[in-house]
């Protein structure tokens, strides 16, 4: 089997808050192979962004990486000093964020923000860096890139700004790009354009992509594999078709809107009854049990371990099976 480019093992990230220690990421393991697209889905607060930030080493106090391993291309990232991590941010791993209105510095021109990225990593002339910046803008589909370089972020539309952010993230040909809901804040038509562009660029460059989203339809069309997070854990993970066509975990099942009580048309992300639990005082046993239609007594006692078949893994004592659900 191929060796993964990025491998998370039992990653735990905690935040010290007034309500106690919040385990925002609680034992996440995930492998990402070269050129692969992994969709990371889950409700708000399930720990998707924190997972992404932890990979880049951008968890700030009161948060900290409590334990686990993040292995990027054979190198362990946890415990690396910030100066070492900094050298990897850009050339090895990059991240783009949800709101294109705020990710670019409002008082610096686009060229400044692009050229500084290149020159932070390579000793190249201003001119050479500018040429590369211009080429990068062209690649993400920005018309007249030389002129755009001279503008300030506020002079560009949201879609254009997100394209600039993508161009910046891809400037150094990273091995892994983490896209944290980069299209949520945009118009639907622009969403799909940008989605297609990022997918294509990553495929061309051989960059692995972790696409964080709420939107299962996006993942279905984009990802090779999918990881479903709930309350800081990956509850189901595997090849995208089997997971979405025939989910094992009741949470995935619920997300798909295929629970018996739901209508199947329309919404992509069905509402699951109940609320996401507060991470500061999770119930004993399976964190999803209080909202789960399949929950039994054993779910409230112990946390389910990992079960696997040949295409995926899941954490559930009473997994859904297509045959049962059809009844």
């Amino acid at each position, binding site marked *: 089997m191929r060796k993964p480019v990025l491998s998370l093992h039992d990653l735990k990230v905690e935040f010290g808050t007034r309500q106690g220690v919040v385990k925002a990421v609680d034992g996440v393991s995930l492998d990402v192979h070269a050129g692969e697209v992994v969709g990371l889905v889950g409700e708000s607060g399930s720990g998707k962004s924190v997972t992404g930030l932890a990979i880049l080493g*951008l968890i700030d106090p009161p948060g900290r990486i409590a334990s686990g391993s993040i292995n990027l291309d054979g190198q362990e990232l946890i415990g690396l000093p910030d100066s070492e991590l900094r050298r990897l*941010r850009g050339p090895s791993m990059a991240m783009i*964020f949800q709101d294109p209105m*705020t990710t670019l*510095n409002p*008082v610096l021109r686009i060229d400044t923000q692009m050229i*500084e*990225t290149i020159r932070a*990593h390579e000793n190249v002339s201003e001119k050479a860096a500018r040429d590369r910046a211009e080429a990068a803008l062209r690649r993400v589909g920005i018309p007249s890139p030389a002129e755009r370089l001279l503008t300030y972020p506020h002079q560009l539309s949201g879609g254009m700004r997100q394209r600039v952010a993508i161009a*910046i993230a891809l400037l150094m040909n990273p091995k892994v790009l983490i896209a944290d809901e980069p299209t949520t804040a945009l118009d639907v038509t622009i969403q799909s354009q940008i989605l297609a562009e990022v997918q294509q660029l990553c495929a061309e460059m051989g960059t692995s992509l972790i696409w964080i989203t709420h939107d299962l339809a996006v993942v279905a069309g984009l990802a090779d594999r999918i990881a479903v997070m709930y309350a800081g854990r990956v509850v189901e993970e595997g090849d995208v078709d089997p997971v979405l066509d025939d989910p094992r975990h009741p949470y995935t099942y619920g997300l798909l809107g295929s629970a018996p009580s739901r209508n199947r048309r329309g919404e992509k992300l069905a509402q699951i009854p109940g609320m996401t639990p507060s991470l500061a005082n999770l119930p004993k046993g399976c964190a999803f049990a209080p909202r789960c239609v399949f929950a039994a007594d054993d779910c409230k006692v112990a946390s389910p371990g990992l079960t696997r078949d040949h295409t995926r893994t899941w954490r559930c004592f009473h997994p859904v099976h297509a045959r049962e659900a059809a009844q």
Partner: protein
Amino acid sequence: MLAYLIRRIGQALLVIAAMATIVFLSIYAVGNPVDILANPNADAKEMAEISARLGLDKPLWEQFGLFVWNALHGDLGRSFVFNEPALKLIIQRMPATLELAFVALIMSIVIGIPLGVWSGLKPDAWSSRAIMSGSILGFSLPNFWIGLMLILLFAVQLKWLPSGGRGPTTDVFGIPVSFLTWEGLRYLLLPAFTLALYKAALVVRLSRSGTREAVLQDYVRFARAKGLSPTRIVLVHVLKNIMIPVVTILGLELGSMIAFAVVTETVFAYPGMGKLLIDSIGRLDRPVIVAYLMMVVVIFVVINLIVDLLYAALDPRVRLQEAE
């Protein structure tokens, strides 16, 4: 841009005209200068003569009309005491005050921004707490008291710096300045520091809150995700954003620094406009008082305009929208 400038200048002229009226009328209301100027045992006839010579015997509206007419011709009257044009007296003293204010301004920036940014980056460190407590002192201790303490310490006790006055000056484009020689600078240090302290405290506060806000912004996170060094993030990404409020507020404060140099100049016997004002008030030298106040108004107005232009230059999102 041009339309904006013309409009702003129009507004400025209006403000100046309104201030001229208020200043003239309110000065007219305080005391009769003749009582002070005349020899204590002068009789009524002599008093009337002085009054006539200074034009104080005319009715108020006529005096005001004359004042406006002359002011439009660049003449703000002659000092009763020195018998010289009041404007000339002010302008002679102005370089000293401007120099004091600018040196104080630079001091407040040089002291305030690093301390503020530091305490904004490390809000919980003991050093930051010390800086913040210090800035409260800077706000609350009275200016003249700080001046006196500095004199006691550095001039009287340690004898490092002179206790007052202005040092030797050199002419630059015909303007006498003292900051170019070490000897001249020594005279400036204490009064400028006294004047700077309050503003430095203000700059500390502004840059601290600006920094605390900026480091939480997505653009800082993105800058880190790009692999930039913390130095570049702070010195370029954060500083450029916090400079917008700092420059705006400090620019506006420069006017008040010039105006309120009065106290510092008095404590340090520093021969600037402020000292002249205090002396003139003591002698009810109306033309000088009026000329001083008019000068301060003009300085305020000009500074305001410059600050607005600077603000637009610093923040690309501001494009002097009023122009449209």
